[in-house]
């Protein structure tokens, strides 16, 4: 998928260059500025993720959710999902393995949903763009919604 994005962005860049050299230069300088602007937070976040994922290994997550059940497990799963940042292509096989290991659909749904929608670690970055209130509200609503998704999964799966 990343390859597609490279093809699209490079094609767009060439087209832009063909249309206007000046504007293309401006676009690239803006792209760089936007990138550099978030670099400090970005690098800090990546270090925190590195330490967190080492301390909180997939095996441990599996253990916690496998032993817990009911809403306690759901809330725990939602909290773990909120504070971790795992790429989707790692999270889904992990989730599938957790299901096989005996975790319930509700817990897994809560974990996946918060993993994707709630980002406690990235909240400083989000605040930079949206301000404190909007960032906190969005994450809070997403957390509550994830519990509802878990409930829905419990009913339908």
């Amino acid at each position: 998928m990343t390859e597609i994005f490279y093809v699209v962005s490079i094609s767009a860049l060439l087209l832009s260059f063909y249309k206007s050299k000046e504007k293309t230069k401006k676009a690239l300088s803006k792209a760089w500025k936007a990138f550099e602007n978030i670099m400090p937070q970005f690098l800090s976040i990546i270090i925190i993720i590195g330490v967190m994922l080492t301390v909180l290994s997939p095996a441990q997550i599996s253990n916690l959710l496998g032993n817990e059940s009911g809403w306690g497990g759901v809330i725990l799963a939602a909290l773990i999902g909120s504070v971790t940042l795992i790429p989707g292509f790692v999270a889904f096989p992990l989730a599938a393995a957790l299901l096989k290991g005996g975790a319930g659909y509700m817990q897994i749904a809560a974990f996946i949903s918060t993993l994707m929608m709630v980002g406690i670690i990235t909240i400083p970055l989000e605040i930079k763009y949206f301000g404190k209130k909007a960032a906190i509200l969005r994450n809070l609503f997403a957390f509550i919604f994830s519990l509802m998704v878990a409930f829905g999964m419990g009913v339908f799966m």
Partner: protein
Amino acid sequence: MKKGLPEILKRYRVFMILFLLNILLAVIKPEIGLKSLDLTWKNTLEMLSVIPPIFILLGLLDVWVSREAMVKYMGEGSGIVGVLLGFFIGSAAAGPLYGAFPVAGVLLKKGSKLSNVFIMMGAWSTTKIPLLLFEASAMGPKFTLLRLVMDIAGIGVIAYLTEKFLTTGEKDEIYRNSMLKI
């Protein structure tokens, strides 16, 4: 844009402190410290491979799409078109949610409606097409479809509520802030 060294040191000081702490951790507790440094390195490489096209596209978007066009298609009164565009941009995206923040910044700067920007972020976080295919193969189609249906409704509700809870002054502040970002 040229910046002095003190300015750079100031901006990166949190990162540098964390980095030193991580090195310290590697010395005291190598089994955790070294593994986390390794993870950090891998994540950095992943980020550097995913992110450049996003920023190039948003630079081009900023230069080529006029404010008038953005307001017309995604601004106040853009109606269902703005909602669908928000869904489309987010679903066609790649990379983790933090990649969506700068894109959100450009949309805001150009005058997109706040709730449409939140819809874009919601779609970016949960209805990305390649990820859905991946999810279906790992979790089964029933789980994926159920989650997708609930998420589409949820994204709309979260976007609507988040915007409703903000005062006009707070929204203005977000728009003003977006002008400084790129």
